[in-house]
């Protein structure tokens, strides 16, 4: 255990056919993981179809044609874990396939788990169960129903739901307004034939990022690269950049009524600051001071001083340059909460930032970034985010740049942050 390779470093192993392969070496974990990300423009036309793909592909592949067969095999491979799904990062839709397995050292077996698990992952992606030159009808119909239920069930998690709805309403005329999983109407148009046509487009033309992390030897890495090289690829689709700068008109006020006890207040802002700009680090500090933790103005004033809420925070959507502020309050206290929130925004504009708020904010970001390195998924997500945003920072770069931000920088950036939408989820009466 004397050679602990820094997971701070990512090395590009190979790049071909629009597939980029990265390796993040570390010996501190008990498991290894392989992550394969396809990414596409987030569009109404493709969103639901892209969301359907992992759902259908995980149903089975050649050799393992049902969920049961795949699960049985994963169990044999010492409880390896497979999962897949979609997310959005700005106006990009990411389709992820992931497998994690225990390092050979702990499995103590003759089975080469790197090869076996990668083969399974690749087969799930490239050798789906087909019928009459299309996907299996039954799988597509069932997964369309599951996806419909998943989209409709968003409302179950009220805290998350109201944040997503606020940002979607804000951006309803832009690609970002599309939900990660598409929408229910578009699902109706999907059948086993057109989804299979879409699958070919997905497999042949979408750019791909692959991350191999943990303690995988050179031979294993080469095996993975060779396997990926066998995927038949066509002309790779150029992916558009997310549009960040948007003029804000009058503030939109939206109220949604459902059966709830607690009101959920959400404010959506445009920061007009793309992730690649130097100002992005100022924005990070601004957000931390405003609502990025226990030290923040929102926590201190909305919760600790006024006792209006249990939670009050702000969060950045880095890729689209959005900031969202969220709090759960007694319904009758909406105006009082808004007043305190607006006061906090004004305080930063006026430069009323205490040394404590400023220093704790910078340290909190530093701790957060350093902590990423303890999770394979988080470090992979960090680098994927860098590549999607076309920035090339390491975790240390981010820390270094954040430390250079001054209070005046925070005041300067505050002028650019514009309130766009106030969203309130409240009770029916």
């Amino acid at each position: 255990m004397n050679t602990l390779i820094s997971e701070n470093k990512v090395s590009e192993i190979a790049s071909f056919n629009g597939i980029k392969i990265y390796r993040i070496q570390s010996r501190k974990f008990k498991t290894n993981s392989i992550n394969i990300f396809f990414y596409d423009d987030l569009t109404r036309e493709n969103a639901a179809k892209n969301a359907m793909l992992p759902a259908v592909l995980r149903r089975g592949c050649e050799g393992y044609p049902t969920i049961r067969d795949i699960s049985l095999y994963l169990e044999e491979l010492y409880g390896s874990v497979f999962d897949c799904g979609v997310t959005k990062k700005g106006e990009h839709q990411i389709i992820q396939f992931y497998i994690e397995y225990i390092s050979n050292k702990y499995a103590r077996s003759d089975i080469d788990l790197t090869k076996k698990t990668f083969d399974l992952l690749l087969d799930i992606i490239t050798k789906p169960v087909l019928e009459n030159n299309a996907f299996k009808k039954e799988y597509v119909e069932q997964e369309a129903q599951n996806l419909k239920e998943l989209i409709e069930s968003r409302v179950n998690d009220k805290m998350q739901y109201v944040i997503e709805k606020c940002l979607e309403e804000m951006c309803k005329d832009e690609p970002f307004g599309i939900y990660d999983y598409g929408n229910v109407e578009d699902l109706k148009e999907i059948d086993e034939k057109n989804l299979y046509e879409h699958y070919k487009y997905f497999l042949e033309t979408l750019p791909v990022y692959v991350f191999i992390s943990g303690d995988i030897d050179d031979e294993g890495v080469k095996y993975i690269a060779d396997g990926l090289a066998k995927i038949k690829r066509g002309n790779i689709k150029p992916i558009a950049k997310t549009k960040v700068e948007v003029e804000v008109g009058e503030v939109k006020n939206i109220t949604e009524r459902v059966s709830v006890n607690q009101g959920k207040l959400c404010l959506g802002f445009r920061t007009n600051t793309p992730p690649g700009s130097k100002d992005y680090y100022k924005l990070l500090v601004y957000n931390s001071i405003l609502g990025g933790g226990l030290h923040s103005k929102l926590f201190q004033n909305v919760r600790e001083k006024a006792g209006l809420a249990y939670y009050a925070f702000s969060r950045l959507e880095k890729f689209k340059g959005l900031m969202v502020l969220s709090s759960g309050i007694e319904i009758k206290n909406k105006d009082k909460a808004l007043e305190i929130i607006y006061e906090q925004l004004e305080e930063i504009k006026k430069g009323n930032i205490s040394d404590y708020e400023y220093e704790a904010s910078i340290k909190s970001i530093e701790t957060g970034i350093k902590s990423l390195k303890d999770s394979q998924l988080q470090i992979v997500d960090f680098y994927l985010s860098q590549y999607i945003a076309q920035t090339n920072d390491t975790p240390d770069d981010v820390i270094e740049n954040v430390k250079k931000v001054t209070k005046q920088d925070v005041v300067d950036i505050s002028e650019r942050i514009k309130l766009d939408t106030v969203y309130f989820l409240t009770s029916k009466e």
Partner: protein
Amino acid sequence: MAEKIEGRIQNHMNIRTIEYKNIDETVYIYEHSSGLKSFVVPKKGYSKKYATFATHYGSINNEFIVPGEKDAIRVPDGIAHFLEHKLFEQKDGSVMDKFSKLGSNPNAYTSFAQTVYLFSCTDRFKDNFQLLLDFVQNPFITEESVEKEKDIIAQEIRMYEDDPNWRVFFNLLDAFYVNNPVKIDIAGTVESISKINRDILYTCYNTFYHPSNMMILVVGDVEPEEVFKQIEDSIDTKSSKPEIKRIFPEEPKTINRDYVEQKLAVAMPMFQMGFKDNDFNSKGIECLKREIAIKLILEMIMGRSSSLYNELYNDGLINNSFDFDYTIEENYAYSAFGGESKDPLAVKKRVMDEIKKIQMSGLDKDSYERIKRAMKGRFMRQLNSVERISHMFISVYFREVSMFDYPDVYDNMTFDYVKGVFDSHFNLDNLAMSVINPV
């Protein structure tokens, strides 16, 4: 084969070590003269250092005899959680600010049987750790701050009232239990917390926060000897170890009711069901054995490789949200499984049919072997995360057992034992169901 090597560090503090060779982990153990036990699990190469200070006191301890007194007292529901909130208040302001100045993240949680204070940091561990040791030992509670906290916690309670996952789970506990306080919401109700005052908070604190009722755990890239030295210097060697008498109401072996339903703003019905377990009167390794055996059986009956799961999934009766678990504590144990379904009662019928089938035909030995190996492999994943280790360690610690014994328990498990557990736990008379329907 188990490879567990016990040892000692030669210094005045009498530090014990247990090295688990198979999984490359070592636990360092030090017992303070007050009776406080402390543990360090070093994780070389990790950035995060995760420290916890926990007391064996949670939401279920609402009736007890104060050491030195004769009569039992009944305290308001939600008080353990309330006290957890109030401990962050110190004479010179909120301790959260001091942690924030150091760039670390303090937090705390109250469960049924424990209250846990913690922080995670990447730098200045010693300073952060000192804050933790000091604030948990020095409550400063004023009437005024108690009143303000009621508003904040009321909003926390409201948040959970609207959370269908939380509600479906607590409604199931209510279906299982007639008297056991585990059925009461951890945070209490807006009404019950209104009765809390400074004096009752101190009574609870003085009863349950004696070092002998507590434990400390540090997971991360730290030097165990330094951590223990700091503990030795900072823990108050209080008067003799008080005897805490916890009072639990009698609980019948039968379930309270077999079905509970509530309406909330959800898109489709959500359900949790499970078996009330009466065989939990065991501490130590027996408790881990039973836990693993039941989790194994659940995986065999309704895991993704089971025929039941696949039939339910293919028939559109369950989706990806379906999951299952088993919980065993000092005074209660139960299995629970559920997710979203357009027809929860149809799922219940299928589950019952499957269990009856297995009662006739027996469990399958091949799946048992395969799933045992898989679960042991998946246990290894948990060791990647300092948070996961801390969480697991503490939850089994108060049952007087070490989480690092899990691999051993897997290795020593036998099919006959598992068959016996199946017969005792999966008793259809003890099956209860909770459903959340759309408004």
